[in-house]
Structure formats: structure tokens, C-alpha cells
């Protein structure tokens, strides 16, 4: 694990965000299965935190991020969105900081420079991210875009068209393939017949790099190097971060198509435990780790409480809001 490039305070911060994301999503599992959520079925990124936190950490606030739907929790937390605001979406409460969507991954906020999925069409977001990079380049704003998507998504036509366009215009964008080895019940090897997804970059003539996606620091370093290339005008990079989908595809998926042994193997590779070991090796006292863990748990508990105290977001609210937007558009 390369750690030289990050200060201890950064490492601690990364650890804190990963943990927060984990605890947040574990709480969602609990709330969902006890019938307390009012949202689109959660599709969680438990076990994949190293990819989103590693990829999106350390950018400038002006840089745009466009996260894969699975992992959006962590991405928003990297952008310092209070957990309460995210929790509101799951609990069907009014968020003050976010648009009132019904799913975190479909949420976009141009103040925080976070572009979520705009439709549920996988791959569509890659094109929009490429467009943001085009906008940045045309406007000479110096912004870089980091966009992530799943392994299964790389089989979509949009992936191909978008990466090609980014190559042709040498856009300031980094593509991160969050290869969690499954797309619903399809193993990546059945859908992608070239061993490494990073090889798909060959088709566009820009670098493709495979990295251990459970090693947050490796992900971070690789993406940061690609960000620098992008900022220097050298164009896109495809980073494949190999991780594993510890969660079922969605919380409604009984996940019967995978062997328990496989999950067990990957549980041992947990990216959070791994970073914990690094921190310990760097001399962080156990106490401080426990402290961070406790703080994260507290923050999530508080987020639930605060969210619950917010007014319900009813379908009527959305109807009213959208009707107002409709009138603005057409009148």
C-alpha cells in the first residue's frame, strides 16, 4: 500500500469518510428491512468504499464528480454533504441541501459540483460527465471531471461513444470503472471477455490502468495521477478499480447466485479494515481509531434522528414543485 503521498490527517480523513459511508449504508439496510424507508430500493456499495472515496478524495471543490450509482453515498460524503441530508432522501423527508429526488444516486447538485445519474439508463451519465469536461475545456476553467461507473456498464454503447469522444477532444476527465465483479447476477467474466476492463482503453488510445480497488490509497494515487494528466491537457485515463460487491445487487435481491465462500473470501479483504491496519502501522493509537468509529456511529444516529424530525416529503410536495417548474418552463 503506497501511502507516501498522503499526510496522516488525510489518511485519517479518508478513513473517517469510508467508515461513515459504511455505517450509513449499514443503517439503511436496517431501516429498509424494518420497513422504515420511503425510497427507491437501496443499491448499496458496502465493501466498495475504497473506490469512491479513493477516486473522489483530494480534488478541488471546482472539479466535478459524477459517481457510479453504487457508491454515491461515499461520493456525497467526500463532498462534505451532511449525512442528514442523504438520510432525508432514504426516509422520504424534506432535505434542505438537496433536490427532492427519491434516490441518492439520482441526485445532482451543481453547487457541490456533483452530477448524479439523470435517468436510470446506465452509461448515460458517462456522456454527461464527458460533456462537463467539454464545458470545462471550452470555458478554460481548469476543472477536471472524475466519473465512475460499473463493470457491467462498460458493455453499453454509451460507454463506447463517450470514451471515444473524450479521447478525440483530449478532455480533462478520468474514468473510473468500479469493477465489483458482478452486474446483477452476471459475473464480469461472462459479460466482458477481455481479462481486464482497463484494456478497453486500447480502443481509444489513452492509458488504461488496473488497480486494487480495495486499496483506497492505491486507487487514490492512481486517480490523482490521472487527474494531473487531465489537468495538464493530456486527456483521459481509464482506471479500473477491482473490488467486490459485498451487498446484494439491491436490498430486494436474495443474492442466491453467488457462493457464500466467495463473499467470505472478500469479506476478509475489507477495504476499511485494510486502511485501519495501515493507520495502526503508522502509529495511530487503537483509542483514536475507536474514537473515529464511535463518532461515525454517532453521526449516523444523529442523522437518522434529525432526518426523522424533518417534515415528510409527500408525493403532493413533488407534484407541486414540479408543477411550478413546469409553469416556469412553459410560461
Amino acid at each position, binding site marked *: 500500500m503506497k501511502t507516501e503521498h498522503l499526510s496522516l490527517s488525510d489518511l485519517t480523513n479518508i478513513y473517517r469518510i469510508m467508515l461513515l459511508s459504511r455505517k450509513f449504508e449499514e443503517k439503511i439496510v436496517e431501516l429498509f428491512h424494518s420497513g422504515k424507508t*420511503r*425510497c*427507491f*430500493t437501496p443499491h448499496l456499495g458496502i465493501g466498495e468504499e475504497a473506490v469512491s472515496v479513493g477516486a473522489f478524495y483530494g480534488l478541488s471543490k471546482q472539479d466535478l464528480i459524477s459517481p457510479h450509482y453504487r457508491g454515491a453515498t461515499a461520493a456525497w460524503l467526500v463532498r462534505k454533504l451532511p449525512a442528514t441530508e442523504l438520510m432525508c432522501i432514504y426516509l422520504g423527508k424534506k432535505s434542505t441541501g438537496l433536490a427532492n*429526488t*427519491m*434516490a441518492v444516486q*439520482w441526485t445532482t447538485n451543481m453547487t457541490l459540483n456533483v452530477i448524479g445519474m439523470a*435517468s*436510470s*439508463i*446506465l452509461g448515460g451519465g458517462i456522456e454527461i460527465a464527458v460533456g462537463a469536461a467539454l464545458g470545462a475545456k471550452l470555458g478554460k476553467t481548469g476543472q477536471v471531471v472524475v466519473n465512475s461507473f460499473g463493470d*457491467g*456498464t462498460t*458493455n*453499453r*454503447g454509451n460507454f463506447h461513444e463517450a470514451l471515444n469522444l473524450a479521447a478525440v477532444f483530449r478532455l480533462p476527465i478520468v474514468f473510473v470503472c468500479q469493477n465489483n465483479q458482478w*452486474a*446483477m*447476477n*452476471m459475473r464480469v467474466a*461472462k*459479460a*466482458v471477455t477481455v481479462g481486464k476492463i482497463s484494456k478497453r482503453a486500447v480502443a481509444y488510445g489513452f492509458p488504461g490502468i488496473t488497480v486494487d480497488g480495495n486499496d483506497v490509497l492505491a486507487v487514490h494515487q492512481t486517480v490523482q495521477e490521472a487527474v494531473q494528466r487531465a489537468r495538464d491537457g493530456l486527456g483521459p485515463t481509464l482506471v479500473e478499480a477491482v473490488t467486490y460487491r459485498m451487498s446484494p*445487487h439491491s436490498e*430486494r*435481491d*436474495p443474492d*442466491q*447466485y453467488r457462493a457464500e465462500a466467495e463473499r467470505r473470501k472478500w469479506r476478509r479483504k475489507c477495504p476499511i479494515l485494510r486502511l485501519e491496519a495501515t493507520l495502526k502501522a503508522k502509529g495511530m493509537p487503537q483509542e483514536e481509531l475507536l474514537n473515529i468509529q464511535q463518532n461515525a456511529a454517532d453521526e449516523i444516529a444523529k442523522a437518522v434522528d434529525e432526518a426523522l424530525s424533518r417534515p415528510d416529503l409527500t*408525493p403532493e410536495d*413533488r*407534484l407541486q414543485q*414540479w*408543477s411550478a417548474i*413546469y409553469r416556469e418552463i412553459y410560461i
Partner: protein
Amino acid sequence: MAELTFREALRQALREEMRRDPNVYLVGIAIGSYRRGGVFGVTEGLLEEFGEERVIETPISEGAIIGSSIGAAMLGKRPVAEIMDAEFLVTCFHQLVYEASQMRFFTSGEAKVPLVVRTAFGATVNAMPIQQQSPESWFLQSPGLKVVMPSTPADAKGLLKAAIRDDNPVLFFEHKKLYDIRGPVPDGDFVIPLGRAEVKREGRDVTVIATAWMVHEVLEAARRLGSRGIELEVVDLRSILPIDKKTILESVKKTRKVVIAHEAKKTGGVGAEVSALIAEEAFEFLDAPIIRVAGPDLPMPFVPSSEDIVQAVESLLRA
């Protein structure tokens, strides 16, 4: 006659047709080992019975799913493709509206495309606004296609079997809220011709024309109004391409008043076409404006209820 759910009726149709004709195969994303056979469980047990050569799971590439199904169909195969969610029809729109639908015309009838595309549509609770689409009217401009929207388990079975046996591409819309409803379903070789509406309830006062889930909202409205002596005639379109003009016009001539109900947004929905047909061909029989009860012109899902239908009928009778 068995009592089956809509889901079971569909599955029975698929199973029977796959047993009957070895050219029939299923293709789509996550239709085999995922959950109980697909996201909505329709294809449960079919992978086990027919194997991977006839229940074919693909990577996430709907364009290639439909495009390749067209090619295979031209060679005599009879693919039944599943597009998990009607929202995803946009990703194979080109293949449906240009290639599948026009092939027979452009080959002077020589090449046929016996393809069925099943897709789940419609609004449910707590689903993402985006995955709630009723995009059926997009396909009205595609002669060559047939578009089916069943509302009961029996119709589901009979129409799906007809769709699979049809030599033309058929889009088969399955409303998500219907999967769990139960009803009697004739055993064995029960086939309902495509393109025929059905009067699901007779009545003399107002004709209400509806599709899929809305048929049930309309029947509920009919029960409520019936108790007050207002008799709705409920016409279930079942197919929207072609539209069964004859059944519609007969009913309109009888009641002289029409309400059209669908879940899709009002502007540009199927209701517009049905209304225009009536205004063109049965104007002299009409006693009142043709009312559409439909979703508002907003991103989905805000869909009408039986109450909206009751109100529409009342306003019509007051006018």
C-alpha cells in the same frame, strides 16, 4: 380453469410456447438465476427447464439484445426478449421503430421478424420517478409493430401466446402492479387474437376506454357509480396498435359519451389517438366532450385513480 396470478399466466404462456416450438427462446438481462427468474419473477423455472441455450442472459446492451433478436428472427428463430423496465426501451428504440417494424415492408414482405419484446411498465409506490414510465404511445407511429397491454391474467396468457405466434414484432407491456393480481385462466392452448378490445363491463351511460392497470381503476369507478345508478361501459383496449376501432365506435354509438383513461402523460398519450379517432368517425353520435383522464404532463409518476375517473364521469354528466 385454473386461478393464476398475472405473473403465473405469463409464465405458463412462455412455458407452453417454448415446449411447443423449439425456435422460441428467451433473451434478456438477469432473466435466469436472478431472484426467482428475472426482476419480476416471470421467467422463474424456465432456465432450469430449457437450459442456457433457450434462456439466454446477456450483458447490459439492450440495443444488441433487440438488434440481434431481429437478425435471429429473420433466420426463423422466435425470440422473446425481455427489456427489464420500459424505461430502457429508449436504448433499443432505433431497433424497434426502424428495423423490427419496417423490415417486412422494406423486403417487400420477404423477411419477417417474429419477435416479442416483453417489458414491465407503470407506476408503483416508492419506486424511482424515472422507473415509472408508460411510454407506449411512442410506438403508435411505427406501423409494422403491434403493441399489447393486457389487464387480466387470462388476457396476459392468451395475448402472449398470440404474440409469440405472430410473424410480426410485438411489444408486450406488463404493468408492474398487475403481476400479483389473480384471476381465472383457461388451461392449455388458449390464444386471444391481437388487436381486439374487450368490453369488460357493459353499461349504457358512459363509455370509458382504458388500458392495463387503469382498467381496474375504471372498473372500481364503475362499481361506485353503479351503486348510484350510473352505468359505465368499460372498454379494455388490450392492443393499442392496432386499435380496435370497431369495438370503440360501437360502444360510443351506444353511450354517446366517452372518457379515456390511461396512466401515461396526457399530452401525446394513446388517449389522444383514441379521442381523435372518435372525433373523426363518430362525431355525430357524441353528446359531450371527449374527456381524457391521464397522468399530468410531468415526469412520472403521478397517475390517475378511480376517484379521478368518477369525477370525470360526473363532470361529463353535469355538462
